[in-house]
């Protein structure tokens, strides 16, 4: 059991962090993922890769927390309350920060499908199995998420550097 947790903790925690955006929430969701998985280990076909199943549980845990967040008022840091434009503009110049912001704006199911594909390197078939939706739906979600992120980066003006880099190739 310990070996299983040790082996997959990075990917599960990473997905939870991407989905939830907060370290403690991600830690709690990842812990709950492994607890649920270990309690149901007897029902799993161990011949198959266990990672998609773990990520599916993690996705469910994260979606539950996101729904709970949407139902109750949330604490926001003072900086976000006052909307300091200069800080926001400065952060907008940072590509990494902009990608992170863009991910936060995606729909939950779109973000999960996108991260499972691009970060966890799962195939469309595996993602469809994980999310229990048709493969065509997964493709649509990933494409829409990608399109939204590209538009976000274009609006934020962080593409120029990449354009120059591509031209140099």
């Amino acid at each position, binding site marked *: 059991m310990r070996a299983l*947790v040790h082996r997959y903790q*990075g990917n599960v925690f990473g997905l939870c962090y991407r989905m939830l955006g907060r370290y403690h929430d991600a830690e709690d969701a990842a*812990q709950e993922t492994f607890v649920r998985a270990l309690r149901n280990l007897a029902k799993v076909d161990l011949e198959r890769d266990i990672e998609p199943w773990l990520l599916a549980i993690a996705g469910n845990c994260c979606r539950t927390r996101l729904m709970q967040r949407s139902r109750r008022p949330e604490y926001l840091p003072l900086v976000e309350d006052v909307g300091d434009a200069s800080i926001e503009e400065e952060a907008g110049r940072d590509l990494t920060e902009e990608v992170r912001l863009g991910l936060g704006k995606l729909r939950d199911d779109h973000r999960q499908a996108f991260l499972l594909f691009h970060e966890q390197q799962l195939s469309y078939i595996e993602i469809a199995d994980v999310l229990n939706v048709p493969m065509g739906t997964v493709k649509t979600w990933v494409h829409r998420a990608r399109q939204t992120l590209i538009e976000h*980066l274009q609006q934020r003006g962080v593409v120029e550097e*990449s354009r120059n880099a*591509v031209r140099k190739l």
Partner: protein
Amino acid sequence: MQCENFERRLHRLLDERRAPEDDAELRRHAAACNRCDELLASQAALRRGLVSVESPEPPSSFVDDVMRRLVVGPSTVVTQTEAAVTTSDRLRVKRRTTPMSSVLAIAAVFLLAVASAAFLAFRVNRGGDALVQDQIAIADIASPSLPRDAALSPAPTMPIEKPQETAAEASRTPEERYAMILAAWRTRLPELGDTLGLTSSDAATMQGAFAVSQLTDRLRTPLAASLASTLNVLRSVILFSEQDSAKPQARLWRVEDAVST
């Protein structure tokens, strides 16, 4: 290549996890189309950004935390993660502990009941054939105005009225006592029957039932005593309820009491 085909090819390459900016055909079209050039640069930025967005590592105690949570639930999660434990998790722990406390509470109540029953049985045995009645005076019932530490004064011991066996009673045989009880029943039953609404056939049946002479000596004396007590209690209740005076006091009854009244 048209812009529509450019987009389709771009997404296909991304689905295949290949870098579109390395595709010569796409680069050729992008060099001639500003919109597609920006699209190609944007997806390259996105891919770079995704790589640079590093996920933080889970804490070093993560495996131990999972194992602890698996065994004893989320309440023992280390301080760092305690704030993230959800309300549903806490309720789950509470539910898990409830059955044990319920069992302990039921066991305590059961033991208390058994101890009370044993104590009462001991008191009754000690009393023997005497009727022991503890009473608490009305004045001893604490009123709200009394201080909290006010103690109850001991209840006065009620003298137990024990009938003195007369010489004539002592000299009677059990058969004679039984015959006297039957005679008393025969005398009083018609009167009681009227009061209780018994018919004449009911009274006759009762008389016949008590006129069994095959009873052994061991049964006759207690039966006679119980009959006498029953008869007098019935009569007392009826008479006192009609007169609305003080209630009859509990006391032992002798055979003579039943016969003489």
